[in-house]
């Protein structure tokens, strides 16, 4: 394994991210923070939502931010670079096994998703305070869940980025990403679906459910949430599935 080439590619991605930092920040945070303002402040402040909703909302917003960032950071460049600009070719010709380039993309996406997730906590706390009750009693467990969620976003980005043709990017967001967010227990806990038993079972195929519930279980355990064992097992399963699928598709795109 050629670590020099691998690290040089990570440095390249970091360099590009740094150059586009303003656009990246807007893209990552604007929509979730507007949501925080409307649901966390306006709806709660005017009495339509109970004050406790602030704390319930925060892990869900964090999950949306992380998953959105990871998918965007990995999938969008892959779609463009393989199909339109072909700029990935230079890195495919670097003296390193081709599959490691996919691993590098996943590592870069995971790091970006983690950064986004960790920045949401103080930002949302500032916007929502007072009244946000965070109880991180097991910081290592929280860190583990956060890493798995970030990894899921990046492996999801790899699988999507190598499957979606360029002319269907819009469809990818409306058919995959949007339903995933709305049925991903981000704005409500999984237990809130109790009155809709079919839907409650159906959403379990959505990996974002485990991301939101996992963050809820480690940040605000006072609310009902899925068991952490189920969350960790599901996240590991989805990560493995998406990574192997993504890797296979990546190789298929890189070599004809």
């Amino acid at each position, binding site marked *: 394994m050629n670590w020099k080439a691998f690290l040089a590619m990570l440095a390249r991605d970091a360099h590009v991210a740094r150059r586009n930092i303003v656009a990246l920040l807007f893209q990552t945070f604007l929509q979730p923070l507007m949501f925080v303002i409307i649901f966390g402040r306006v709806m709660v402040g005017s009495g339509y939502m109970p004050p406790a909703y602030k704390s319930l909302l925060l892990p869900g917003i964090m999950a949306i931010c992380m998953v959105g960032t990871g998918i965007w950071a990995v999938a969008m460049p892959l779609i463009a670079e393989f199909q339109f600009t072909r700029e990935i070719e230079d890195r495919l010709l670097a003296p390193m096994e081709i599959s490691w380039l996919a691993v590098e993309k996943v590592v870069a996406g995971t790091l970006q998703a983690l950064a986004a997730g960790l920045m949401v906590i103080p930002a949302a706390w500032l916007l929502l305070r007072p009244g946000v009750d965070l109880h991180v009693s097991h910081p290592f467990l929280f860190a583990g869940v956060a890493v798995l969620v970030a990894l899921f976003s990046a492996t999801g980005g790899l699988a999507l980025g190598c499957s979606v043709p360029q002319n269907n990017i819009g469809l990818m967001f409306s058919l995959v990403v949007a339903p995933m967010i709305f049925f991903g227990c981000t704005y409500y806990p999984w237990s809130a679906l109790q009155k809709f038993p079919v839907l409650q079972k159906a959403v379990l195929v959505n990996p974002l459910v485990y991301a939101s519930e996992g963050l809820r279980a480690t940040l605000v355990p006072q609310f009902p949430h899925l068991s952490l064992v189920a969350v960790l097992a599901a996240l590991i399963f989805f990560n493995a599935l998406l990574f192997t699928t993504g890797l296979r598709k990546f190789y298929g*795109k890189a070599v004809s």
Partner: protein
Amino acid sequence: MLAGIRTVDLRKVYSSAPPAAAGTGGFSFVPGKAKGKGPKPPKPQIVALDGISLEIQPGEIFCLLGPNGAGKSTTVGVLTTRVRPTSGQAFIGEHDVWANQVAVKRLIGVVAQRPNLDFALTAREILAFHGAYFGLSSTERAKRAEELLERFKLKDRADQMVRGFSGGMMQRLSIARAMMHDPQVLFLDEPSAGLDPQTRLLLWEIVREYNRSGKTILLTTHNMEEADALCHRLAIIDHGRVIALGTPRELKASVPGGYLLRLRFGIQSPDLLQRLQSLSGVREVRAKDGTGADVYADRGGSLVAEVANLASAAGVELNDVHISEPSLENLFLHHTGRSLRE
């Protein structure tokens, strides 16, 4: 360490359109999936390479010449780890390309047919990051990037994003990037397509200079002049097969006579063709589409008057005459019956 190139009976059959990034000549669509009931129709098979065997010596400038779709880019794709051959073997130096990809990638530099520069970076950064992928230290990277920017006349735009570069500038930067890690074997896929004459001459000069240090260069082109001016040896490729191989001089000498007169009559007859054949200096006459004839001869212009006399004596109108001097174009035509530009 000098490295040559060897291929043994390479075949490549596509059962669907090659993916866009495989660098195999410009497909950029994703084929739709067949839907509906009943047995699926068999996938169309495209034979891109049909048994290519080549032996290119270290330090040689070798050219693959052929029309679009002949298999030139696919051959380059196989040799540069981007296209997996259906059968056969490819070697760079002593390394089997598909058994030892990483070692091969260290030895080669590739300029693809279409620009594939990193649009998120400036020209200098493109060179520097490329150097970093190949393990160059930061001082080496900076020094070498500076030299190449100077050499390729890109210094005044070195710190600008490449998005706004002209086609010629992108092409020059692509070649500079391929040379950044000082590869033993340089692949140039249609390097002068879209370049102005001045830049083309600069490119030729740079290629010759790079070759003088013992580097092997494989370039593809459908430009006869380029192949003639630049290559030590060349292979003419058509429909995935090598149809002629040798030095430009040998190949041109293999065309009967060397000169080609393409004639068009009002109507052409076997009798007329026979009379053409009997003119002095005519080596070969080929009928074409009922009204045309290709005459291979060892003289050009001086034959025209005799051809015209012969036509008027036979009561046939001579509508058009085109004379080509000995060239690789004639050679291609002689071997395939088609012009390179068709």
